């Protein structure tokens, strides 16, 4: 039954990693221009 502690804590840890990644993405402006990049891939040469 002790296994449950490990699993829960592990899941929370993974969640925190995901959260950190999202916060990083927001802070570095990944969501600032939602329009441009989809065109940019065609034009970069």
């Amino acid at each position, binding site marked *: 039954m002790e296994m449950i502690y490990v699993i829960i804590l592990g899941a929370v840890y993974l969640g925190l990693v995901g959260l950190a990644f999202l916060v990083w993405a927001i802070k570095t402006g990944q969501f600032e221009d939602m329009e441009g990049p989809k065109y*940019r891939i065609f034009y970069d040469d």
Partner: protein
Amino acid sequence: MREQVLKEDEKLRRYEVEKSSTSQLLNLTTSEKFCYHCGQPLPSEPFRESINDRELDFCCQGCQAVCGYIFKAGLESYYEKRDRSRPGGPPLLLAGDIDNTINPKLVRSEGNISEISLMIEGIHCAACIWLIEKVLGEADGIIAARVNFSTNRARVQWDSKRLSIGEIVKKISSLGYGAVPYDPASSEAVLAEKNNDTLVRLVVAGFSTVASMFLAEGLYAGYFWGIDAASRNFMQWLSMFITIPAVFYSAIPFMKGAYNGLRNRAMTMDLPIALGALITFFYSAWATVNKRGDVYFDSAAMFICLILAGRYIESSSRKKAGNATERLLGLGAKSATVIRDGECVIVPVDSVLVGESVEVRPGEKIPVDGVVIEGESRVDETMLTGESRHLKKVVGSKVSGATLNIDGRFLFRVTAIGEDTVLSKIIRLVEDAQSSKGAIQMMADKIAAWFVPAILGIASLTYIYWSIHDPSHAVIYAVAVLIITCPCALALAIPTATIAGTGAGAREGILIKNGEVLEKAHKATHVIFDKTGTLTEGKMGVVNTVVSGRWSGVSSENELLKIAALIEKSSEHPIGKAIAREAMERKLDLNAKIEGFRAYPGKGVEGKIEWPVAGGQWSVVLVGNRKLMLENGLQIPHELIEEEERLSSEGKTVVFISTGHRPPTTDHSLFGLIAISDKIRPESKDAVANLKNMGLRVTILTGDNQKTAAAVANAVGADGFIAEVLPADKESIVKELQRKGDVVIMVGDGINDAPALARADIGIAVGSGTDVAIESADIILLNSNPLLVARAIGISRKTFGIIKGNLGISFLYNIVFTPLAAMGFIVPVVAGIAMPLSSLAVIGNSIRAGRGSEV
């Protein structure tokens, strides 16, 4: 490996096909009569230039120069990349050296490396981004350049030793775009920053919600099927830690808002939110530490998350809308060419003095207000008046700062600078209107004002009652009241409804800048249209053609139009242009020889046509007013005179068309007339009728004369009209109506409408309008269809209905559960189910109502 090669091959082949089809498209578009650069229709005599062995036509010198520059830089693939369905406007040109006109505060420097943020005007498709980034990226000394397509903002980093900011702005402007530095600490950037901040808080709250819900699921399972005390306590402790970021980071804006509200002795919606979150959290924490009672961490996290989600959606729809005044200031020219001691000197616009002579060349913005003293030109005053007609300026005409000089060079004497220019006055009016527009109390805050005291009162009564009858449970029951009346459903009632309404509007091309507008618009009593550009198309067009029966050679209206257009096609007069445009639109064949074109100012024009019908014969054609006809000794047929009188009483401009020999002989016959006016949009009549059916009064506001205004008001069926309004008076008319108790919706498109749009309870800007009008307005119609005004009000009314429904649901919930909690009947599981259920019911109701196509 082989597959890979095949794939590449296939890609290449497809690319070739696409490329050839684009170039076919290119040939097609260039062979038709559109400017190669900007895609606007060509004038009768286009600017032609041979670039790379191709004959290209341009609408103006500006486009020609920009295109030449693009080819020279080897970036002609721009023309293949860009979206032909979205033509741009003519390029914005820049005069002189602008280095010393840029506020050094806007440049951030670190050693040699400088950075600036620029607002780019004139971006219309993704290829523009490519072009700007490419040109800047290849320039020597530029370290990084990135243009944001969503916001049309650029960030440029450069080596200030090798390049000056002026050269960067000049590079952008040589591509035909305007670049205005802006302060990233301005309200707009602050808004974007705040938006990002909300997003981070939302993500954190989302994490807490999901994680604590999983744990809560375990706890509920334990509640039903048993769980050992150690596991239960472990899960409770863990939930607490997981919920801490949601309550003490994500919910901070609510706590601040509640605190600020209390300091101003007001109870805002933030207060019940903050109270709900804190009480739920601390009660659960107390239960966890003392190992008694139940925890509701998941409820606290979920409700913070849901409310933040609502706020985020709202604030991101506002992100694009900038600050109107800031945009207005960016409109003006930055430098001016002043004649000092007989020499042309380029100076910053701030240092121009009243009484000085200023030179303006074609394509330049007029820097300040003044009176023309030499030369003549046409000026585009769209930005001030919303009228797309180019106005002829001759010696003695007044010119206004920030308007665009089209084709002539002229000198003018400065009459007003700085604060006194027309543009500055408009800016002041907008500022005044925005700051003095009394913020009406939002419904949510009105409700919060009595909701909070009510729940606190009920909780205290509960505590008092139980401390007499069962002191051991008094605290728990009182807290249960506070938790169960969790304001979640209430806090969501209004934002979810406005989001649903905003979404329904967006699907129909109605952009609603903030949800509060929807709350206000249903109360509207009076709609004011600025005539030009909203109910009418805003440009002169042919509205009637009448062919007199007396002449046999011309039988159809098209033939009449064709003859008039043949003569008028080389005319610069707006009437002539309207006729020529109509003929082009009807695809009439305008290939015939013209000789001896003459214009009689104020009367009309004359020319000789190689007669298209009677085989090679030359014939004199006169196009002009009655005076011109009479001076040429022509008898105007009776029925045409009647027609003329009828049409001009409707405010239309009438020209007669006659043909024959000179001097007049008996066979010189008059054969028709054409009436020209600002065309009323086909939908205008229905639009006004719809509004009147909704019980609103409709008034037309215009700077035109009484006759024209009356004719338009009559034609669309408006309740009334106010004619000969000076631009500055529009705002005071709105104010006057508001004073009488009307809730006013103003619909407009020009800069001169901006103060009125800002002053009105709801400002609606049509999509073709100027940026400033759009930014002063609360609602933007993506296309210029006036029917959308009624739709917007309809959506507002519907939204108000949803709000009422939502409030009903949340009150019902509170009425059922609060007494139960006060009596101590609430089992934790019921509370745990009821709380989210009430929120879900509210969200569900909003989605249901928002999805209905009949919104």
